[in-house]
């Protein structure tokens, strides 16, 4: 079978879903998006199993592509499914729901395009297009804060991404091609422009990936977007940007400037992780807390890719495990928000007594994203710190250990307080409490519990059973 047909199918699924979602009939939008996202998962699995490597006309694939593709498709599918439960509660959405689902499909389409094209120019175009397709999703709830967050997101990310266009221009000027297959075949021309290209890619794609100090948009957008969109932002949008950065960085392999740029990426990565780890402990808004946790994870993942070796394999494993665990946390946060109608941790206490399953799911998801064994994030973080140790960079080892510890304590202390703390409304049955507070007594349903549970189990499965397919694909990304 011509493997390029897999890439066409992968992109066609969300594109067709986006078009059908706009048909003005009730229920069509959710059905079209569900079917298209399920089709994308299926094709991604076929792509993973096919082991497709190299250039396929317009497309390019290696281990990293195959793994990120299945991650994007899966989180896309679960976010569409969770939207079914979540978006109904929005009374005055900024756009009609069929536009919401259509944009969700297009958002996934642009991310899938970014990780499968064989041209750095198109990678940039696709990542820029993710901003266009997702800007309105952030502002869906039509509140002052969400509209403001959408503006900040679009402006900061766009301004940053223009810098990465300079990176693309420099790569072309110095190498005469933008095709990833040609660039990776090497040897490349040395000179100042290639490290400069990586520097501009770091600023541009780093802005979109939430790398400090260009991260200002991230906590706002993650906390104000509807929970399914927050899950897609955190779980797959940030790694897609990291993918573009890593593709550019890996071109330096074998060039004299590699070590200097490696240190630069490690520096930015660890700074991001440290900053986020410190801020997490002081958060008052639980969705912002999760957003900073995403920043921390992206910082560590960047360090892993920069270190290379098993650090890069660890980074890939962490990308996948974090995507499933963090999306589970955001879905859990969505259930809490629906019930409490507040994002303030001070007002959300005793979740376990009000929401039978969501509280525990939220607490477990928080454990998973902070690298508690045996979840997959732990395996990724362990491999990254092991690589740092093997290179003899003990200062980095200490800093990573500090980040792991501080984040683990900071985030889980807050989540435990939310889930098991004493409710400010005092005793009585749950229904009594809801009635006393006059709050929305909406309860979780099977869908709102099953989706985060499924994702959490995948994050656990990655930790306890290292799939040979995943390992094989991950090893393929080490240059």
């Amino acid at each position, binding site marked *: 079978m011509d493997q390029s047909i897999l890439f066409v199918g992968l992109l066609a699924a969300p594109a067709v879903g986006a078009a059908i979602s706009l048909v003005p009939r009730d229920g069509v939008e959710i059905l079209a998006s569900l079917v298209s996202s399920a089709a994308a998962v299926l094709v991604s699995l076929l792509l993973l199993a096919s082991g497709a490597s190299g250039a396929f006309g317009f497309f390019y694939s290696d281990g990293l592509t195959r793994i990120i593709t299945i991650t994007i498709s899966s989180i896309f599918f679960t976010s569409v499914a969770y939207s079914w439960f979540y978006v109904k509660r929005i009374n005055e959405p900024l756009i009609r729901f069929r536009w919401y689902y259509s944009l969700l499909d297009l958002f996934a389409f642009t991310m899938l395009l970014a990780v499968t094209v064989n041209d750095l120019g198109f990678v940039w175009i696709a990542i820029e297009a993710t901003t266009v397709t997702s800007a309105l999703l952030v502002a869906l709830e039509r509140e002052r804060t969400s509209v403001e967050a959408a503006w900040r997101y*679009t402006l900061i990310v766009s301004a940053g991404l*223009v*810098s990465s266009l300079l990176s693309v221009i420099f790569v072309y000027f110095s190498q005469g091609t933008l095709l990833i297959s040609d660039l990776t075949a090497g040897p490349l021309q040395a000179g100042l422009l290639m490290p400069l290209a990586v520097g501009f890619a770091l600023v541009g794609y780093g802005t979109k990936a939430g790398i400090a100090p260009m991260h200002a948009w991230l906590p706002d957008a993650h906390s104000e977007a509807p929970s399914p969109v927050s899950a897609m932002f955190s779980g797959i949008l940030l790694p897609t940007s990291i993918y573009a950065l890593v593709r550019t960085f890996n071109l330096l392999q074998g060039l004299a400037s590699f070590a200097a740029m490696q240190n630069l990426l490690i520096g930015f990565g660890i700074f991001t992780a440290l900053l986020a780890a410190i801020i997490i402990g002081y958060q008052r808004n639980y969705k912002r807390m999760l957003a900073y946790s995403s920043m921390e994870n992206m910082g560590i993942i960047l360090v892993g890719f920069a270190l290379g070796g098993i650090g890069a394999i660890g980074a890939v494993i962490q990308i996948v495990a974090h995507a499933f665990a963090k999306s589970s946390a955001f879905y859990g946060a969505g259930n809490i928000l629906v019930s409490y109608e507040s994002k303030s941790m001070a007002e959300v206490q005793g979740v376990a007594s009000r929401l039978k399953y969501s509280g525990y799911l939220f607490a477990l998801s928080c454990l998973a994203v902070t690298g508690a064994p045996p979840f997959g994030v732990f395996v990724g973080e362990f491999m990254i710190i092991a690589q740092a140790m093997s290179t003899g960079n003990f200062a980095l080892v200490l800093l990573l250990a500090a980040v792991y510890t501080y984040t683990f304590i900071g985030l889980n202390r807050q989540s435990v307080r939310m889930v098991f703390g004493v409710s400010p409304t005092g005793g009585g049955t749950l229904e009594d409490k809801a009635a006393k507070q006059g709050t929305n007594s909406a309860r979780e349903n099977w869908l709102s519990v099953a989706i985060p549970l499924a994702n959490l189990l995948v994050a656990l499965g990655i930790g306890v059973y290292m799939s040979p397919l995943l390992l094989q694909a991950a090893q393929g990304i080490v240059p």
Partner: protein
Amino acid sequence: MTIPASLLGEVAGLLGILVILSALYLQSQTFVDPTIRAVAVQSLLLAGFFVVLYLESGVADLLYLAAITAGIRGILIPVVMLYQVRRFKHSLRESGTGQRVPSLVIVGVLMTIGGYALFKTALLPTLSNPSASVPFVLVLLSFLLIVTRRNALTQMTGFLEEENAVLYAGALIAPTIPLLIEFAVVLDILGVVLVGVILSATRDVLRTLEEPELEQLTG
């Protein structure tokens, strides 16, 4: 009739200087509407520059790029932005920026000089094209505009200026780069989304175009 290459070079250099002057003029404004008009003029100057480059090199993409730059960033987006200004008369002047403008202009001039010095030291040996210092300085000035202003429309002009700078760099350094037109189109679509959709939503929901200090969006 063939235009002498030396004359084209002189015209290109002159347009480059005018682009930088327009960027400094942008920094010196406290009112929003002259800022928008200045970025429109800058885009038209840049379109002229692309035409000159086309006459020099014969690369047809540059002509399309000139048309896109003049049509979208020179006319369409500024017209929509000026319409937004008319809807919000109270936002014509930026709040709190007036007193800082002289110092911002000085910072802008220093960035221009410093940016050129940095370019000459670090990039000129590799790029071997002194004119490339113009987009390099322009990027720095656009960043300054975005980070120092609070009004959404002025921040938007900073984004347009940055876009001008990068396309300027692309056309000058690597005029044969594939996808140059596509880059411009995607950036312009983003500009239209920013102006047409997000700004409209901001205006409708927040009833202002000043960046508010929202309690919940801190920390």
